[in-house]
Every structure is written in structure tokens, then in C-alpha cells.
């Protein structure tokens, strides 16, 4: 019975996605149920994705033998404005554990611990290019928004695996602890949401911190903001227990991709600026179908959106704009699509999106053409150092 129920669910999700994303409502070709990938109930956020910041876009992709973590090497690709995408993986260290990044134009990129490595190597980024000189800190949280950098002061923040938020005021300065999970648990905002973990960090335009957290209690957004030494949590009455998947600065506040609900979770974007809280409608398919997420943040732009990628047999992108309904992107993508990232400085629209498909060491980058069909823009081949950590 359980097997049958699962198959029905898969069929429902696939059909929903097809209807949602196809401009003429045509069903994409479907194989037999038995050939469909089983649905995962894991809520671990995928590191794959990307950020668009002031015209510089960066995408993180897992490449190599994806079924073997020892031979999966995360790669970063960078493009400025409308230029072509280039490999920008930080050199000198194996990237099996994953890569995470803060602002791509003037932020940092970090390699997460894996195998015998117990610390995270961090390289500053200048216009999307990693510096030749790196630094290492204690283990970084394995999450897309584990780091943040202030565009104004240059202060650098990160979340460790042990749940501490560290700050480095300048490139050669020591890291100091700003707050921690245990400290946040003692705050009224932390108690209100039933905080269980810190899942990301962002710096607002006024230099104040915002952290994404996992909440066990309903009715909060999962975003805590700091003001004058006090942590405040925003309320959202229609949101159940939630966990922030990604968090980024946006205008005067932050925008977050939030997973809500339990086993039948869904995704929605939430923007918070002062007392203003806006929620997008939830992504109309279950979170467990999510394969990767991509965030596109328009600093100073007209609006901020999050692009989500989900599906089972095929995947589809959708733009989650706070305060609005979900905007599906026409045309489904192959299952090998790992990220959809916005490129360029214009407001996010289907025309600015780039989809990244991965096959071992080959990354295929696609864009939507005038007929709203995905079309190959370029192909980048990467030499994967299989077995370099074995």
C-alpha cells in the first residue's frame, strides 16, 4: 500500500508541475512510475544554487560522480552582467564538502570541511574572482547562507557548525563570537519561535544582522533581526513551524526562502523590512520534490525574488516574489538541472534566468529564447580531480 501511495503522490506532483509550467498545459512525456526517482523527505538544503549581486552572478554546482560524495566536487561559475560564464572554483583545496559564498562581487567563497579537513578555507572575492590569499577558520555551517559580508564596512560574518556566529571586522583581524544558538535560545524571539538551529546569516543595509533559524513553534517567519543589541522575530500567523533555507539582504531588509510545514512541507519567500513582512504564496508542490534552489537578489533593485527549482521526473523553475503569487517559468528542464540563477542587473524575469545542467564534468548553461523554450547558451567542461581526497 505504501508503494502505491508513493507512486500516486509522484504522479500528482509531476502532473501539477507540468500543468503549472507548460504554457499550453501540455503534459511532458512521462515514463513508467517505477522509473521515477523516489521522493526524499530530507530537508537538508542543497548547496547548489547561486546569487546575483550588482551585476555579478555566481552559481554553485555539484559535479563529477554525483552518486559518490568522495568524487563529487562542487564548482563555482561566475558571470559579469551579460558576459559568458567561467569556472571560478577556488584553487588549492578539494571541494568535496561543498562550496558556499556570500556576496559574489565583493564577498567571500568558502570550502566546507570534508574527509580529514576540519576547517573551512575562505577566499575573499573581488568582482567574482577569488583572491590568491586565503584564510581558514573553524568548520563552517553546511548551508547556502553560511556567510555574509557587509558591502559598506567590509565586516565578515559566518555561522559555524557548532552554532556560533563569528565576526571579522577586517581581512587580517581575528574572528570574534557575535552570538550563538544557546544565546539566541535565551532571547524572547528565540523562545517565541522555539529556535532549534541557526541556518543562515545576512547583513541588512543598516549593517544590522539577520539570522535565519529553524523554529519548532508556528506563527513566526524564522528570521531574527538584531537592532541595538536586541533580537527580534517577525510574526507570520499563517506559517507553521519553519526553517530558513536561504537568507539574503534585500533593499532595507532581508528576503528568505523558508520551508514551512512538516513532512508535507512547502516553500515560500518572505521579505522583512522593519515591521513589514510579506509572504509569497507557497510553491504548489511539496518541498520533498525540491532538487535545488537558486536565489537571485537584486540589491537596490525594484523588487527581490527567489527562484526555486523543483520537480521529480523533470524540474521546473518558479519565481517566488513576496506578497505575490508564484510565477512559474515556462518550459520544464531536465532532471540534471542543478540550479537556475539570474544574470544581469535588470529585475528578475524569465528572460534573465540561466539554467545549469550537470553531467559529470560538463556544465551546460541554458537561457530562455523568444519562444519561451530553454536553449543552450554555452557548455563549460571542467577537469574533475576524481579521487583526489581518497
Amino acid at each position, binding site marked *: 500500500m505504501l508503494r502505491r501511495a508513493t507512486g500516486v503522490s509522484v504522479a500528482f506532483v509531476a502532473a501539477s508541475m507540468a500543468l503549472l509550467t507548460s504554457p499550453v498545459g501540455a503534459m511532458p512525456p512521462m515514463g513508467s512510475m517505477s522509473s521515477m526517482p523516489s521522493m526524499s523527505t530530507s530537508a537538508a538544503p542543497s548547496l547548489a544554487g547561486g546569487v546575483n549581486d550588482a551585476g555579478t552572478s555566481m552559481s554553485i554546482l555539484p559535479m563529477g560522480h554525483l552518486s559518490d560524495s568522495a568524487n563529487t566536487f562542487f564548482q563555482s561559475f561566475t558571470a559579469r552582467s551579460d558576459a559568458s560564464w567561467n569556472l571560478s572554483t577556488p584553487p588549492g583545496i578539494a571541494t568535496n564538502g561543498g562550496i558556499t559564498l556570500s556576496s559574489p562581487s565583493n564577498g567571500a567563497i568558502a570550502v566546507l570541511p570534508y574527509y580529514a579537513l*576540519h576547517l573551512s578555507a575562505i577566499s575573499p572575492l573581488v568582482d567574482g574572482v577569488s583572491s590568491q590569499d*586565503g584564510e581558514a577558520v573553524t568548520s563552517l555551517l553546511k548551508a547556502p547562507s553560511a556567510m555574509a559580508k557587509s558591502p559598506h564596512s567590509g565586516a565578515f560574518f559566518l555561522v559555524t557548525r557548532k552554532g556560533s556566529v563569528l565576526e571579522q571586522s577586517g581581512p587580517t583581524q581575528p574572528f570574534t563570537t557575535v552570538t550563538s544558538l544557546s544565546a539566541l535560545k535565551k532571547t524572547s524571539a528565540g523562545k517565541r519561535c522555539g529556535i532549534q538551529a541557526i541556518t543562515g546569516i545576512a547583513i541588512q543595509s543598516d549593517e544590522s544582522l539577520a539570522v535565519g533559524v529553524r523554529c519548532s513553534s508556528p506563527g513566526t517567519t524564522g528570521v531574527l533581526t538584531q537592532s541595538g543589541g536586541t533580537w527580534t522575530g517577525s510574526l507570520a500567523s499563517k506559517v507553521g513551524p519553519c526553517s530558513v533555507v536561504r537568507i539574503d539582504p534585500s533593499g532595507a531588509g532581508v528576503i528568505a526562502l523558508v520551508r514551512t510545514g512538516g513532512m508535507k512541507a512547502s516553500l515560500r519567500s518572505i521579505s522583512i523590512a522593519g515591521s513589514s513582512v510579506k509572504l509569497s504564496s507557497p510553491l504548489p508542490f511539496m518541498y520533498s520534490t525540491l532538487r535545488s534552489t537558486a536565489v537571485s537578489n537584486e540589491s537596490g533593485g525594484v523588487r527581490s525574488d527567489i527562484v526555486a527549482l523543483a520537480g521529480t521526473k523533470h524540474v521546473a523553475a518558479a519565481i517566488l516574489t513576496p506578497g505575490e503569487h508564484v510565477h512559474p517559468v515556462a518550459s520544464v528542464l531536465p532532471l540534471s538541472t542543478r540550479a537556475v540563477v539570474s544574470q544581469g542587473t535588470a529585475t528578475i524575469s524569465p528572460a534573465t534566468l540561466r539554467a545549469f545542467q550537470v553531467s559529470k564534468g560538463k556544465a551546460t548553461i541554458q537561457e530562455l529564447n523568444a519562444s519561451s523554450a530553454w536553449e543552450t547558451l554555452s557548455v563549460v567542461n571542467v577537469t574533475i580531480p576524481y579521487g*583526489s581526497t581518497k
Partner: protein
Amino acid sequence: MGGSVNTNSSYVTAQFNTALLQELIVIAVAMLAIAILSTLVLRRQASKALELGFDLPQEPAVRRLLRLGFGVIWVIDGLLQLQPQMPIGLPDNVVTPTAASAPAWVSSLVTFGTDAWLRHPVLAASATVWLQLGLGLWLLVANRGWASRAAGWASAVWALNVWIFGNALGTLFMAPISWTTGAPGAVFFYVLAGVAIGLPPMMLKRQSFSLWMSRVLGLGLAYFAILQAWPGRGFWGGGKDGAYPSMASEMGSVSQPGFSASIQHWFQTFTTNSSWTYNTLVVVVLALAAFGFLSGKVSWMRLGTIVYVAMALVDWVLVQDFAVFGGMGTDLNSMIPSALIVGGAYLLARDAKEVVDLEEIPVVRESRDTRTLRFVGAIAATVVFLVGAVPMLLVGVLPGTSADVAAATGAGVQELNSPAPDFTLIDQQGKRFTLSDYRGKTVVLSFIDPVCTSECPIEAQEMQVASQQLGNNPAVEFVAINSNPLYRSPATLRAFDTAEGLTGWNQWQFLTGTKAQLQTVWDAYGVGVEILAGGGMAAHAEPIYVINSSGVITATWTALAEGSVNTLESQSAVSLIVSEVQKASK
């Protein structure tokens, strides 16, 4: 990550010699015990005036030929394994090139074998010596009974292992297959011989068995005759690109005695002008031998055997270059074993009887003492075999990589007993460090990447444990040089120390500097550093130097190379550090 493999690593050679010596001592002790026991048994027999001899069935001629022939061959093979470059050279210079053009599934088998060997090269190489010597002696000494048959099966099993993992299935799946160059593989014949020796001797006298064996052999010879005659495979054509001249040219280019080089040169010249002559000879001989064995007539088989053995000897000299003189010879190649098999098949047919009557089997009288000595000899040979076989089994099952193979990769350029090049860098606290300031202390110098994801953290831990075992002696400094050109800040080194629990260790100095300063030190100590694309860490050699209180290098080796490590190997690495420091401190 290590550099290229050094087949002639003096460290590995020394380890190989040590392993052989240790195993020889084990064998000598066992032999002494066996000798004492056998003397006691012989005296006891003499005192009891037991029966003086036994009438035993005569060993079939085919069995005797194969047992003695392959016994001698195994002994030769075992002695060839004593070559000092075997630990690293066998997989790299012999096995891997053999399988270079093999299909993927064959390559994967060979890679499995070479990987296992290269994880523990000294253990594997020394084990192979005793295993093959033991097999040879066992076959030579044990002439009948279960001990003799067991020797046959042991020979067959080991040969099958070599044929699959070391001989790429006899190159049967690699074009162009040719009898002249060794197909179906020398050790394939060892397998056949081992099985024949392992079978009950009575079976070797049955006509039905002989008939089938003749047919199978005849079909095999016919197959190779057809392959050799098949046009377009390069064996008929001459010129410098012809198959025979090319092979002769290749064999002649290998360092070897003058007379065999001269023969190769002559054969190259001859086949450049008339390859067809030699190939015709090969095809005719193979066809004649095939016809002889398929005919079922002993007289034709005899003729076929004679021409085959003669041709095999010619090919062994002209094409296979005596098999052992050029390069790293590991065996006599296929011709001698195949000649023994063909000769054995003839004897099998000659002596076969439709109905085997035990009464008709000739008997030989063997004295009681001879019988006892043969039994004792078989036990002694088995001991030699086990001294090889047991470690070889461990090679197959032990995880991780021995320090030996690492020592063959990226060895330092500094010679022993030479002054250690001086340098000045900064430590993890930003303080200036000059090597020559540490005269009066023993320095263990290593090269560590602070953001390395594999061996470096383990190497640092091994250093710390070694320091602890030396009582954290303040007269011994453990100095590591940063070997990552990108992550050079003292903060990164401190983060590494914190992550690895090295912060409270007073004898630990992790040094860094500008890229140019580091490059100077890397160059002086032979550390190549390469930045890999695509998420690969910095590849660098990992030499370790022990520098005595006078600033002289007293030992150098390479830390663990690529691959997983285990507790046992870390313990041996620690022991190596401790022992070399103690030697340097004397």
C-alpha cells in the same frame, strides 16, 4: 598528495631487503626445527628396525615432466622476483604496460591487482619471492601423495591469480593476439600444469582423458595457427613497421647482454626483408602440431611435439628475447612452459591405456629414509610457500597504503649526510624562524598543506604522537613548512593547529612566508607544488627530513602518499620517525 613514483627508491629497496631478510630468518628457524624433528624421526625409525623401503606406483611420465619442469620454472620465477626494483617496478613497468590496450573490464581487473600490490609493495614483492620459491621447491620435492597433489593445486591457484590480475588474462583480449608474443599467457600454462599435477595420477593414464586433452590442445594450436596466418594482422608484412621487425626493434632497444642484443638486431634485419618466411614457419609448425594432436595418432603427435618444441625454442630466442635478459624479467615467458605442456600432452597420449590395470603399473622401490626425507622436504617447502602466501593474503585484505609506496613518490632532493639548506620563515605566531638557529637540536622537517583534505592532518598527528613517544623532548623540534601557495597566513596555520589539537604542543613549529620565500624552501628540499583545477587541492610532495644537531640530514623519506590510511600504518609511520630521530640524536 605525492609526486611521481620512483621505481628505484633506495628506501623501498632497503625495506624490501629488510623484509626478505626477516622472512629468511623465519624460514631458517622453521628449517632448523624441521631438521631437528626429522633427525629424531630418522633415529627412531633406525632404532626400531622398521621396514627398509616401500614399493610405490611409478609416477606417470607426464606428471613427472610437468612437476619437475614447472618446479624449476617456479624457482627461477621466484629468484627473478628478487630484483630490487620489483616492489614498485612490477606493477608500474610490467603489469600496467601489459594491460595498456586492454578493454575496460580487463583493465579494471589488472588495476585491482596493481592497486592491491601498490598499497603494500614491499610486503607483496617479498611475499611473491617466497611464494614462488616455495611452490617450486614443493613441486620438486613432493613426488607423490596428497602433498604432491596439493602442490599442484597451490601452483594452479597462484598462477590463475597471476594470469588474471598480473597478466591481463594472457593478453587474450588485446589485439593483435599472437602465439609468438606470448598468448595465451605464460602463466596460463602454469595453471594447466598445476591442475594436471593436482589430479589423481591414475586419471592421467586414462585414454579417454588423454583423448580429450589432445583434442583441446589441437584445437588451441589450430586457433593460433589461423590467427597467425590471418592476413591483415601485420605478421606477413616486412618493412620497419611490420609486426616482427617492430617487436625485434623494441626488444633490442632494452638494455641487455651483447649477444642477445645482436640476435635481436639480426632478427630485425631478417624480418624487415622477409617477415613472411618466419611467419610461414610459425604457421606451418602450429598447423602441424595441431594436426598431430587432432589426429589421435601417437606417431603424429610425436612429430608435432618435436617441431613445436623446436619452434618454441627458436621463438623464445628470436621473438621473446630469452624473456629474462631485457628489462624486468619476471618469468621465462610462454614458450618454455608451452613446450612442457605440449610435451606433456604427447606423454599423456603415449602412456594412456583404455583400461588402467593397477597390476600393470610399474613400481619403484623407495627407501624408508628417502621417503621420510621427501616428506620432510615437502613440509619445509610448504613452510617457504606459506611464508609468502600468508603475507600475500594480507596484501589482498589489508586496507590503506603502506608507507613504503609513499617513500617511492616524490623523494626529496637532498642527499643524506649533507648539510640541510638554511632558510628563514615565520611561524604560526608570526615569529621569525631560522633553521640554523636550531643547531644543537634534532629537527624533523616536513611539508604540510594547512587546507589539505587528505594526508596532511594525519601526518601532523603522527608527528605529535612521535613527539609524545620521545617524551616531548625539548631537544627535538618538529618543523612543518606550509606547502600551499594560496593559504599562507599565520591565521590559517593557527586554524589548522586548533583543528588538529596541536596548539599546546611546544615542539611544533608550522612555518609560512611569502610565496617567493616558500618557493625557495620547496626548491631546496625538492618539494614540487602544483595547483589543480576543478576543486582539486594543492598537489605536493611530502618528504620528511631528519636533521641532526650539527645541521646534517641523517634521514629522509616520504610521508604517506595518496590513499586512505589506517591505524597500523600510522603506527609504523610514527615508529619510523621515532627511530630515525633516536639515530640522529646519538
